[in-house]
C-alpha cells in the first residue's frame, strides 16, 4: 500500500478523520523523543513534553499552511516545548535533586554488533554539548537538511554548518578519549 505523505495525512485529519493523526504520531514519536531526551536527559520529562507537543501540533494543524515541511514545523514545536521545559524553574529544581538518566541508561557497550554500534554512536552524540548533539541527531539520525535544522533551532545556515563541523571534530575527540574508536570505526 502506498504510504501517505505528511500533507495527505494532515488534509485527512482536517477533513474529519481525526484518527489518522496517529500515523503522524507513529512517524515522528521516535525521532522527536531522541531530541527531547537529549534536552531533558530524563525519560519521563521527554515523554511528557513530546505528548504535549503532539497535542499542540494537532490543535495548530488548521494554521499549518505547508510553507515549510511538516517535519520542520513539528520539530520547531518540539524544540520550543523542550526549551521551555528545561528553562523552567521547576525543572531546574528537579534536576538539582536527581541525577540524569542518560549515562546509566546508555553506557558504551564493548560489543561489535551492529545494534550496539548504532546505540553507542547515539550515546556518544549525547555526550556532546546540547546544541551540537541536537544538530548531529537531526542531521544524521532524523535526516533533516542543514537548512531545516537551522529553521528548527533558529540559526543561520552558516552557523548550523559551523556547529555540525565542530560537532564532528568533538565526536572524533570523544571517540579517541573513550577508546571506542575501534568498536565504532
Amino acid at each position: 500500500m502506498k504510504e501517505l505523505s505528511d500533507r495527505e495525512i494532515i488534509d485527512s485529519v482536517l477533513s474529519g478523520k481525526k484518527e489518522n493523526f496517529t500515523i503522524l504520531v507513529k512517524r515522528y514519536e521516535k525521532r522527536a523523543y531522541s531530541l527531547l531526551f537529549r534536552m531533558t536527559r530524563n525519560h519521563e520529562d521527554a515523554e511528557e513534553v513530546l505528548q504535549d507537543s503532539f497535542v499542540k501540533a494537532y490543535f495548530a494543524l488548521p494554521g499549518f499552511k505547508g510553507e515549510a515541511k511538516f517535519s520542520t514545523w513539528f520539530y520547531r514545536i518540539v524544540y520550543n516545548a523542550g526549551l521551555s521545559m528545561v528553562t523552567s524553574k521547576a525543572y531546574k529544581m528537579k534536576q538539582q535533586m536527581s541525577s540524569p538518566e542518560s549515562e546509566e541508561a546508555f553506557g558504551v557497550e564493548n560489543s561489535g554488533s551492529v545494534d550496539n554500534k548504532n546505540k553507542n554512536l547515539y550515546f556518544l552524540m549525547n555526550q556532546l554539548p546540547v546544541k551540537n548533539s541536537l544538530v548531529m541527531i537531526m542531521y544524521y539520525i532524523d535526516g533533516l537538511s542543514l537548512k531545516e535544522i537551522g529553521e528548527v533551532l533558529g540559526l543561520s545556515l552558516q552557523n548550523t554548518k559551523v556547529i555540525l563541523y565542530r560537532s564532528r571534530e568533538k565526536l572524533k575527540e570523544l571517540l579517541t578519549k573513550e577508546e571506542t574508536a575501534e568498536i565504532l570505526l
Partner: protein
Amino acid sequence: MNRSDELINKYLDNELSEAESGELENLVQSDQEIHSELDRSAKLHSNLKLADHPFEPNLSRKVMDTILVKSAEKAEKNIIYGIIIFFAFSIAGLFYWLFNGVTDQTASVLPDVDLSFLSPVTEYYNRSIGFLNSAELPESTYILLAVGAVVTFYLLYEHHREVRTLIIKK
C-alpha cells in the same frame, strides 16, 4: 578550523565545488595525515548515517486520548461561551422590557401612577440597548428572551451540578 578540515567537511556534505575538489585531491595526495583524516572522517560519517534511535516510545494512544479529552473540553467551553452570551442578551432584553415596556404599559393603564422616578434608569437602558427599540422588536421577542433566560439558568445550574458531582467523585 584549518583549510583541510573545511574541505573534508564540505566533501562529507557534498558541497565541494570543482576547484575545491581538486584542491582536496592535491592535499590528500601530498599529505598522508590529511589522507588518513579524510578516511577517518568518511568512515565516521557513514557510520553516523546508520546510527539509530535507541528508544521505542509508544505514545499514539496517550496522545489520541489527550486530544479527545481536550477537544471535548474545547467544545464544552464553546457551549458555555454561547450560553453566557445568550444569557447576557436575555438579561439585557429583560431589563429593557422591565424599564421601558412596563413603564409605558403601566402609564397607559394607570395614568395616575407616577413612574417618573424610573426615568433615569429607562434613559440609561435606552442609551445602552436602545437598538432593540429601533429594531421594533415584536412582543414575541420579549417572550423568547424570557424563555432564553430561564433555559440559560437551567443549563448553567445543570453544568454546575455535573462539575460538582465530578469534584466530589474525585
